[in-house]
């Protein structure tokens, strides 16, 4: 309860630190905020070329939206994934790279990782807004779903915050964390349904059946990855324009709350020692 009060008191600092990130990031570039779109667009082009043109992944059209554009379907999952990866990659170093500040000024340390989340979210909002415009032009009836899209974004942001809190602390004690994480995230993208649909995993899993005679299938293991559920929710809302599977919602909420609770607990336990440990 006290902790909540302290965090509320620091919200102005959080806003200022976030603006420091946002403003500092594209300062002195010609294209400014447009750079935020460059990375997803470049990935979209290359993945579309490889996976839609060369490998020819089969996609069912959006139901009921009727969309059938691989590049757009890809973006509906790629943007949340890039946000997630950005939060973790910048969150993990948020304490170590502000060591000087932590050692000289007493303030609520939790704002450091959270400002990374907020500044990534700022860029993400911009990207999603552009995507929504494109979706609408292509005829998807996405506007009524926007409130739910925002809820899903908030859930993913909470989930990513929880992980970022834990990782930032881990990185203070083990600087390996940040390098390890960047590998995990690269692999993680291929273990999540970003560039291929879950249905392909389901088909492949069916062919194998239970692993070593157990009733557990590869698909079951695949579902242990929380991002499978988050991406499912985003694609249902943005690309298909329908209610996501309620279990997917529940799983997302559980992961988000769980990650946040554990993240805050780990952070609280360690924040007093940060100035010495860094």
């Amino acid at each position, binding site marked *: 309860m006290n902790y909540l009060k302290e965090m509320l008191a620091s919200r*102005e600092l959080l806003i200022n630190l976030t603006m420091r990130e946002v403003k500092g990031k594209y300062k002195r570039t010609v294209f400014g905020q447009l750079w935020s779109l460059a990375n997803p667009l470049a990935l979209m082009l290359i993945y579309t070329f490889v996976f839609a043109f060369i490998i020819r992944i089969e996609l069912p059209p959006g139901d009921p939206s009727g969309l059938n554009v691989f590049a757009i379907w890809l973006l509906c999952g790629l943007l949340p994934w890039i946000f997630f990866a950005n939060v973790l990659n910048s969150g993990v170093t948020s304490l170590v790279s502000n060591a000087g500040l932590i050692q000289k000024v007493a303030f609520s340390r939790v704002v450091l990782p959270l400002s990374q989340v907020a500044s990534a979210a700022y860029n993400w909002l911009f990207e999603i807004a552009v995507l929504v415009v494109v979706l609408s032009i292509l005829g998807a009836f996405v506007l009524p779903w926007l409130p739910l899209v925002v809820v899903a974004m908030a859930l993913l942001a909470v989930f990513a915050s929880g992980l970022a809190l834990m990782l930032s602390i881990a990185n203070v004690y*083990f600087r390996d964390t940040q390098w390890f994480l960047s590998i995990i995230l690269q692999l993680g993208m291929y273990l999540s349904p970003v560039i291929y649909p879950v249905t392909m995993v389901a088909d492949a899993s069916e062919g194998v059946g239970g692993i070593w005679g157990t009733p557990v299938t590869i698909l079951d293991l695949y579902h242990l990855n929380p991002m499978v559920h988050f991406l499912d929710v985003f694609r249902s809302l943005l690309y298909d324009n329908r209610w996501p599977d309620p279990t997917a919602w529940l799983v997302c909420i559980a992961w988000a709350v769980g990650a946040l609770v554990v993240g805050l607990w780990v952070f609280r336990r360690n924040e007093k020692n940060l100035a010495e440990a860094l």
Partner: protein
Amino acid sequence: MSDVAVRVDHVSKSFRMYHERNQTLKSAIMRGRTSVHEDFWALQDVSFDVPEGSTFGLIGSNGSGKSTLLKCLAKIYHPNKGTITHYGKLAAMLEVGSGFHHELSGRENIYLNGSILGMSRKEIDRKFDDIVGFSGVEQFIDQPVKNYSSGMYVRLGFSVAINVDPDILVVDEVLAVGDAEFQKKCFDKFAEFKRSGKTVILVSHSMDSVRAMCDHAAWLNKGTLKAVGEATPTIAAYEASLDN
């Protein structure tokens, strides 16, 4: 003497001295522990009171624990034993310009730095002109701070920090930078603080400035308190120890 502004009560602080610091997983896994360490006591059983309204000097040779004590006051470090109580709002200036962003302008950095030091936006709005006026960098306020000279950088940082307007101000050797004019301005500011009944705790290696500014002093040596009380005898005792 009058009331107490800060009470330092049997404070001890230890650091881990690592013989082999290995913040990698490899070493942790191979040895089953992160590092080999022993405790080093940077402060041992230090107790004193800082009277309200005094200018209190903290003196001692390098590595005697002055900065460590100030960081304990500022709640950046937490003592292993003992307690520190302060009566009134405390602000610490251990380094000026912490958290300045080089690409942002002086104006933006005032707001950023101010909020790191705990000021609200409204408060900074109100004090903005004072801050800029005191720093003397009006002309460059909309320039990115990376174009500032190091003295200007310090001036701006100091101006923000001094305008936090605490009851107790804690300062660590930040006065050494800046030109003579600015140093004079700072001394005047401390004098003004004193006149309005506020407490200043400062660390300095210049015995002349301690003598000029402080009415009370404490002398730390290798983490233990050697002497505390009126400034003149404490400084004399310290200087006598140096002559030997």
